[in-house]
């Protein structure tokens, strides 16, 4: 069954009106700015059916999920899109370094994996991976028993380690790891909610007439009350290493199966990204 047109999205009412966006943007940025409506949804193209997303467990939803179809038909919807390459890069960071990395068996045992970097990542950037996996998204419960002074100290150390990651040595080590890991795990990664195509299913969703009145924008075109690095991606310190890696992996003089697969994926996303922009 072809599910490439299925769309996982977040719909929220905000000070900028109704916004439809990706799960990643929705769970941090939009969630923090939602007024009276916030729902995490999956649309099955095959069944023409809206389902509540499995990933909404313990999320602070607002309003009623059954209102989604009506809102899409009757309200102006701002559809947020992202630079597809940039979205893929931050998605890769989230999948390979963040909480989702636990889903990739063997990842930390690759020969290019640096144990010290893993300790910093697991202890200070993305702690409690196992707990978060078990408790889904109930952060309150995860953090409830941790003394505040510990959390504050953790932020301090995290800040220092962030600065270390800006150093060339750390960037080189991450690049070495990404060079090995990305081609190995690409087929798994490209089906995850952080990386799987967004613009292609969104384009089809709109073309199918589910949204009557809409505009298309990039996130940075909207201004929100809660808007800083904490509410956007916290991955920026890792992104330069991903850039370096793609410069290497996509070098035309170094053909690989991964190059073909990635080109096909990203070219399609850019095509529909541009079509969405062209439509509105």
């Amino acid at each position, binding site marked *: 069954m072809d599910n490439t047109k299925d769309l996982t999205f977040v719909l929220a009412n905000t000070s900028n009106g109704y916004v439809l966006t990706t799960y990643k943007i929705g769970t941090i940025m939009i969630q923090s700015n939602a007024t009276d409506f916030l729902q995490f949804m999956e649309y099955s193209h095959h069944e023409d059916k809206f389902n509540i997303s499995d990933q909404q467990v313990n999320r602070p939803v607002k309003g009623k999920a059954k209102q989604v179809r009506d809102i899409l038909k009757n309200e102006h919807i701002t559809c947020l899109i992202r630079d597809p390459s940039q979205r893929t890069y931050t998605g890769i960071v989230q999948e390979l370094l963040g909480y989702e990395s636990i889903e990739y068996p063997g990842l930390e045992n690759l020969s290019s994996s*640096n*144990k*010290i*970097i*893993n*300790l910093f990542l697991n202890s200070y950037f993305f702690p409690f991976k196992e707990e978060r996996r078990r408790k889904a998204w109930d952060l309150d419960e995860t953090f409830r028993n941790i003394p505040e002074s510990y959390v504050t100290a953790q932020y301090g*150390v995290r800040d*220092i380690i962030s600065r*270390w990651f800006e*150093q060339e*040595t*750390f960037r*080189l*080590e991450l690049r070495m790891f990404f060079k090995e890991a990305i081609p190995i795990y690409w087929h798994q990664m490209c089906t995850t909610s952080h990386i799987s195509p967004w613009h292609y299913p969104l384009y089809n969703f709109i073309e199918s007439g589910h949204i009557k009145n809409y505009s298309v924008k990039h996130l940075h075109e909207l201004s929100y009350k809660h808007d800083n690095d904490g509410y956007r991606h916290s991955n920026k310190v890792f992104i330069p290493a991903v850039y370096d890696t793609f410069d290497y992996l996509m070098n035309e003089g170094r053909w690989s199966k991964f190059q073909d697969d990635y080109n096909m994926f990203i070219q399609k996303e850019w095509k529909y990204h541009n079509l969405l922009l062209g439509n509105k």
Partner: protein
Amino acid sequence: MEDFTKDLNFVLANTDKGYVLTTNKIGSKTLEDNATDFLQFYKYIDGTLINFGNNTLHKGRPGLIKKIFDNHLITCLLRDPLERTITGIVEELLVHDIKNYPGAYELASANPVLLWLTERYFFPNTTVNKGNEVHLAHAESHKMVQHIVENFMKQPIFRQQWEKWWTEVIPYTWDKLKVSIHVRKYNEPLYHFIQEGMIKNYTTCLVQDINFKHNNHHSNWMFKQPIRKTLDTITQDGSKFAKDFSSYILEEEKYFKHLRDAS
């Protein structure tokens, strides 16, 4: 191969504990801070005493050494040979002397992040010229970061990474290490130096047993355990390195014991 066994590098200083003779490593830290009116650095090569070192630190006239040796009780400071070798290896491979060991940081077992942390936060003077002014606030924040890194170093993962590198780098660099200033034999040449009658009246004392006013001991403690553990492993396999290292340590221990027994 050139025979260094009788060459002795040492520091002689007058302190509140009287005249003390010791290694460059101890001399350039602890004795520097405790010297009263005499502090000089020497090499004894082929029967000749040569004065050397940093003139800004020197006290007294170097030529007085003969009179001092003839007329004063000299306390010769000794260190456990294995312990001294371990801290010497740290000094050679992590601190200022790493430039003498090309390729050591490029070995497959070298963890660049670990080495980066070590270089920046434990031994920052490797990249800052001596005499450069360091702002107090900078020095304070450096201490805080050093404290944080120190706590990291206690984590098992850091120790494992160290052991991995030491296992490869110590045998790889041993031929150079064993003639370096921090590792080369000390107890054997000191024994010969005394046997030749250079010091008329002496006693020996372990470094940890002398209680100086300013006690600046080594800051290398967090590296010692991984090195010790590594040496326990890599000296058991009958390799050329294992034989050479064991013979080196046995010789040093033999003369260390002679010196302890004779005083």
